[in-house]
């Protein structure tokens, strides 16, 4: 091993260790930033190490790519608002998939028929996963950015078509491994991967995006790991596997939080117009006056806010925080209950509330807050629906049966901030709205909260 190679390997080795330590830092908010600095340093080392690679003969194009990427990266990093985090994440998975796939294509073009079975297999995985991630994430991005409608896009025979597509991709993959020199097969596989990515995500509804984003995260990571196998590079395998594993764990957590299987999320087209709407108990929604709500809040001992995606769309997180501030000044205990699938990506609500300056010691997970519900005076539901639907708990036949919910109906009083009388994403009627304990305050969540804050101030 030459001194140069030794240096390169040393930089990769150190980077691998720093990545793991960096992720370990994320186990607590206090150590998280320090962890990320370590990971950043690791990345820097790995990049510098790579620049010593003896195959690199010219730096001009590298510099062009690095500059272009850094400019766009810095711009996105600094200016993307926190509410757009799900879209940004989807887009970055697309970039990750693209980068992996392109390296794979270029490796294939360079070596062609001289590739051994093992290397072709690795390249195949890399291009397949990279391609699926690229187009799949672009569709997810379009849905989240509302360039495409968020409801599932379905047609007859969809699952059959997708199954056939996937099967032919696998067949071509196997054929390619047997005849590595066959360029046409390789391009056919690339095309199928790109098409499959689009068709896979189209039928999935916007509210299922937490699972899809996590899954695409996993694919992007595995594509990087496959790149590592193809190039015989361990730091790529390690970093890719960490990313792949993380996405996988998150998608399983999200599925558990909805009591659904991954297959159901991917192929169930949940929440589409065709989903049967069972109208269980019809009832009257009790509308409450703003001043009544203000009085209830002002004289409560404990208030729990339950945010959902509606809070993000109404940009109401700062208004929540202001109302909470006023309540706290009056000695009211304020807590926030966060359902794992509230919002459009894992942890979405936590980030929005943290941005609005809510300390994380006030953010409670489902299991922590449910036992406190019976002693809570007022639970305020802000733009959340399915995650507080008691049907999930009470009606075994419901489409969301068994999904863990935040049991706001056990609180002494429930106030639901709601835009209109419409149904939730799943198309299900929510009996919570008809319970005697529940009062509905119609209107834009942000306006309602601001007016509530003013009303409480005057009491």
């Amino acid at each position: 091993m030459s001194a140069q190679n030794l240096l390169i390997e040393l930089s990769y080795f150190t980077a691998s260790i720093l990545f793991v330590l960096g992720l370990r830092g994320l186990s607590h908010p206090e150590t998280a930033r320090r962890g990320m600095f370590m990971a950043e340093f690791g990345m820097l080392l790995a990049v510098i190490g790579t620049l010593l690679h003896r195959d690199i003969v010219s730096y001009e194009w590298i510099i062009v790519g690095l500059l272009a990427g850094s400019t766009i990266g810095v711009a996105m990093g600094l200016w993307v608002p926190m509410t757009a985090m799900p879209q940004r994440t989807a887009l970055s998975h697309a970039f990750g998939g693209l980068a992996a796939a392109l390296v794979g294509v270029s490796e294939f073009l360079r070596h062609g028929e001289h590739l051994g079975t093992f290397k072709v297999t690795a390249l195949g995985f890399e291009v397949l996963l990279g391609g699926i991630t690229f187009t799949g994430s672009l569709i997810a991005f379009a849905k989240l950015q509302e360039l495409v409608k968020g409801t599932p896009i379905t047609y007859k025979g969809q699952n059959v078509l997708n199954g056939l597509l996937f099967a032919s991709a696998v067949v071509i993959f196997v054929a390619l491994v047997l005849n590595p020199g066959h360029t046409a097969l390789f391009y056919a596989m690339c095309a199928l991967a790109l098409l499959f990515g689009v068709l896979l995500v189209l039928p999935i509804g916007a509210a299922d995006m937490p699972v899809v984003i996590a899954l695409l995260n996993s694919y992007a990571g595995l594509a990087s790991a496959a790149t590592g196998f193809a190039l015989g590079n361990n730091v790529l395998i390690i970093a890719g596997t960490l990313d792949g594993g993380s996405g996988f764990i998150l998608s399983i957590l999200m599925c558990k939080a909805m009591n659904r299987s991954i297959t159901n999320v991917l192929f169930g087209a949940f929440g589409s117009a065709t989903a049967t709407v069972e109208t269980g108990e019809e009832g009257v929604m009790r509308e409450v006056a703003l001043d009544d709500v203000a009085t209830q809040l002002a004289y409560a001992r404990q208030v729990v806010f339950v945010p959902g995606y509606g809070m993000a769309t109404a940009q109401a997180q700062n208004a929540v925080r202001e109302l909470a501030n006023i309540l706290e000044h009056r000695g009211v205990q304020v807590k926030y209950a966060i359902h794992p699938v509230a919002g459009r990506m894992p942890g979405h609500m936590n980030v929005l509330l943290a941005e609005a300056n809510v300390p994380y010691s006030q953010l409670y997970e489902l299991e922590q807050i449910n036992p406190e519900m019976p002693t809570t005076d007022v639970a305020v539901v802000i733009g959340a629906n399915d995650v507080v639907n008691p049907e999930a708990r009470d009606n075994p036949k419901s489409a969301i049966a068994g999904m863990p919910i935040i049991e706001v109906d056990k609180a002494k009083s429930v106030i639901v901030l709601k835009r209109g009388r419409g149904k939730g994403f799943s198309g299900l009627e929510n009996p919570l709205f008809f319970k005697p304990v529940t009062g509905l305050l119609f209107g834009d969540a942000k306006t309602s909260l601001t007016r509530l804050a003013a009303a409480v101030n005057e009491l």
Partner: protein
Amino acid sequence: MNEVLIAGLYVFVLAAFLGYQVISRVPPLLHTPLMSATNAISGISLIGSLVTAGAKYNTTSTILGVVAVTAATINVVGGFIITDRMLKMFKREAKPAAAEKK
């Protein structure tokens, strides 16, 4: 059997176990930063594309490499910046001064 493959599989499986242990400990509170952090880290595919972009194997390779370097760099740079921006926001107690000033 290929030695590189065997060594790679060892690394892959061990990294998977290690990753499972480390990532299961990340609280749901930090799941969004976790996702953008792992995304930035997997931008390590940058090092593969750097070689492709700088090696002058052939013109197509160079073009693909440059695009790949750009895409991966966006993830690395953007991902780490955003992760840090998010992590800065998580505070145990609200700082009274900062909260008032808004």
